[in-house]
């Protein structure tokens, strides 16, 4: 399949003596949104860090494929080399340079493609217009949602073909979360492939073309986003938790929960 942009095969990695990933494999189709969900500690964040060379891979490989059919082995490359190949990532929470201004954050993001700075800046500010009014504000002074937008904007400044998002919903209010997800979809519509990890499984699978469920550092399930949303096992294991909780909350107020 030449319409893949990223393949991860049998990836193992961890910290110290302990492996967190015990052989994870995923594919990202060009132009798609791929979601990776799973409970806390299932290795979602470690998977992204290993893909990006922030945590060394102990086994397996990560390949980046370009449209012409060429491929680059990312395994063992340092993060700045991976960025130069057309990838970028928005880490979880620590996603901006807090001591620098919004404008400086964007300038840092454009370092790999400095000559196209002005054009890229216009494109990014068009996609995320709320940043235009706060270019000279210190990033530390932004709200959680604004920070997330700035993190995404910084990543887009390098004009990546693959954007990796580590739990964009972390620490965001539900209304802001919807806005961030809408932006992710809009960015995807401009041709950027997206690989995202999420705790908010339901919203994430609803917008994803394809999803993977990780459990304890291994692939557990995979399928089209909509199929996973309706999969009995996924509902029971992950989405059901949310229903049970709402059911229990209702219990106390107005009798037994209504069946779905």
């Amino acid at each position, binding site marked *: 399949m030449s319409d893949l942009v990223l393949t991860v095969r049998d990836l193992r990695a961890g910290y110290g003596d302990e492996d967190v990933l015990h052989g994870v494999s995923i594919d990202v189709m060009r132009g798609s949104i791929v979601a990776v969900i799973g409970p806390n500690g299932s290795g979602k964040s470690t998977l992204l860090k290993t893909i*990006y060379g*922030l945590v060394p891979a102990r086994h397996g490989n990560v390949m980046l494929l370009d449209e012409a059919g060429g491929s680059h082995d990312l395994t063992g490359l*340092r*993060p*700045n080399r991976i*960025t*130069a190949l057309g990838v*970028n*990532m928005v*880490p979880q929470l*620590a*996603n*901006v*340079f*807090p*001591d*620098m201004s919004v404008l*400086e954050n964007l*300038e*840092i*993001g454009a*370092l*790999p493609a*400095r000559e196209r700075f002005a054009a890229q800046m216009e494109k990014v500010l068009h996609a995320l217009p709320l940043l235009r009014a706060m270019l000279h504000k210190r990033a*530390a002074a932004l709200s959680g949602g604004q920070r997330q937008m700035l993190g995404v904007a*910084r*990543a887009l400044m*390098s004009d990546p073909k693959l954007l990796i998002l580590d739990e964009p919903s972390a620490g965001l209010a539900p209304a802001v979360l919807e806005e961030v997800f809408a932006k992710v979809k809009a960015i995807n519509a401009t041709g950027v492939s997206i690989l995202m990890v999420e705790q908010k499984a339901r919203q994430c699978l609803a917008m994803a073309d394809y999803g993977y469920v990780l459990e304890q550092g291994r692939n557990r399930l995979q399928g089209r986003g909509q199929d996973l949303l309706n999969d009995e096992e996924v509902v029971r294991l992950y989405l059901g938790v949310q229903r049970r909780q709402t059911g229990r909350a209702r219990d106390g107020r107005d009798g037994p929960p209504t069946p779905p």
Partner: protein
Amino acid sequence: MLEQFAQLTINGLITGTILALTGVGASLVFGIQRIANFAHGEYLTFAAYAGLLLNATYGQNLVVATAGAMAATAILAVAIHFGVLRPLRGRGLVATSLITVGIGLMLRDVIFMVVGPQTRQFEIDQTAVYDLTLVRISPGQAVAIAITIVVAPAVALLLARTPIGKAMRAVADNRDLAAISGIDVERIGTYVWLLAGALAGLGGTMFAVVQGTFDPNLGFQVLFLIFTTVVLGGIGSAYGALMAGIVLGLAMELSTWSGFAGGLEARFKPVLAFAVLIGLLLYRPQGLFGRARVF
């Protein structure tokens, strides 16, 4: 009394600017390399003798001597980075910091062995005084003013405007994100030692010139003032260290002003510096300009 105030302000600005420039280097080293470099004072001592060699032995003027000392100290700092600190990376903040204590002791003893314990001075007229009506400055101070007035804005511009300066601040701010943004953090790690070494070189020669006489304890005596500057400014914050150095220099000098409750005795100046530091940390542990960090 006004004249004394003006005089102390000038003295404080000179000391403060030298502290600020040295502190910027130490602060960026901490932010980027995660090392509290206890050998930093000895880099200053090394620089003072490198400058003296050029000035007294080879008859170069103070500007050339300072530039030479900056280059030599930058090379020393990079050599120690590649020879010792980089191979030992990943052993934790305490271990690496203790290693720098050892490097500092070794450097100081080697300098003692080579140059001996006697005091030295640069080839400038120590008795001359320029009387500028309100204040009087020594030729050493005049040289320090002339050099820092060029270097301080240059360093500020480097950090604020150039891609390399922005990259340094970015790595100090968030190392992983800087790497993801495409910055070669290893290369920046080398550059920061070059910059910190050059600024320590400047600080060492300037302190020696301003003090008049110096011995191999020069750097050790100012090490804790440099650390105070770094902490006061907010560890890892370059602009913070620039401001904090000047604030600290002024506070120390002005504390001896007679209009300030009769003035503090000069030998208590460092005590004041640490009292300010302790007081500040009680109420603002992240420093004047820093933000809360987890190490």
